[in-house]
């Protein structure tokens, strides 16, 4: 049973990447290829990069990236080629501008909101822990406790 489980898990771990065999003229080009394909979103299966996806469109886009690298295009030129056709959506790291601003700012706003909430909560707790009990009342409490002890 244990062995079956391991085999099953191994099978699961196999299909993480879509592999094409590509030959590059130099290692820098291969590196550019690898970073680019893992920064571009597959538009069919939207939560995968084109490096991970087995969709046909992803394969075509990988081919496109490969050919452009072989033609000596820079990373910037290839990203521009893709955004001209598919919009900012194709980028996993969208540029900061009006439409995408909320994506970048929202986490900071939520962090600030959280910090403010924690600060207010702690301050509130501190205040309420020593709610002014008048000295007379404290005296009474003490005497009551002492009486209780005697019994």
């Amino acid at each position, binding site marked *: 049973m244990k062995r079956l489980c391991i085999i099953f898990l191994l099978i699961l771990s196999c299909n993480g990447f879509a592999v094409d065999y590509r030959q590059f003229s130099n290692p820098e080009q291969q590196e550019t290829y690898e970073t680019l394909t893992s920064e571009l979103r597959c*538009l*069919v299966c*939207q939560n995968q990069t084109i490096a991970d996806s087995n969709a*046909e*469109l992803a394969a*075509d*886009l990988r081919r496109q990236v490969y050919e452009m690298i072989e033609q000596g295009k820079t990373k910037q030129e290839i990203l521009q080629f893709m955004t001209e*056709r*598919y*919009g900012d959506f194709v980028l996993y790291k969208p540029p900061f501008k009006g439409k995408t601003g909320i994506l970048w700012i929202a986490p900071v706003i939520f962090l600030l909101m959280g910090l403010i909430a924690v600060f207010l909560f702690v301050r509130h707790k501190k205040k309420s822990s020593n709610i002014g009990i008048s000295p007379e009342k404290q005296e009474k409490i003490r005497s009551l406790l002492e009486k209780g002890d005697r019994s």
Partner: protein
Amino acid sequence: MLKYIIPLVLFIVLAVFLALGLSLKPGDIPSPFINKPAPSFSAPKLNAPDEKLSQTDLIGKVWLFNVWASWCVSCRSEHPILNQLAQKNAAVIVGLNYKDDPNDAKKWLQTLGNPYTVSIMDQDGRIGIDWGVYGVPETFVIDKKGLIRYKHTGPVTAEDIQKTFLPLIAKLQVES
């Protein structure tokens, strides 16, 4: 008092976001091509592979560019709608036979009817990439100057034709 207002406000904000989320279609990616010139192509015609069609041949006409394939299931549901549209002669319908086998494609048109004035072949999907195609079927509306004015992703329904396509085509036909 604050004890009740804060959770209420949080609840309302969350509810508004979730309600907006319900009406969003994550499959619809806005096309960056709207009001931009149609990407250029020059591709062999499906029925006459020796002849080529390019986007400049269509300048001066309002045309629809419909991406289809015989392997695409939703194209089949869209097909009768396109046949009906073709009968109205509202605009030229150009088909892009995307990553398909020409023989399968021809057979498909023979059995289901051919709404296309002309279909061109894109066997390796390059024209598709130039047009930002990611889900077949897709339909573009191009005006007389060769600008893309509208893009529809997914199968076109009879309602889309009545409410969106026909009014838009009529408007574009009047433009010079």
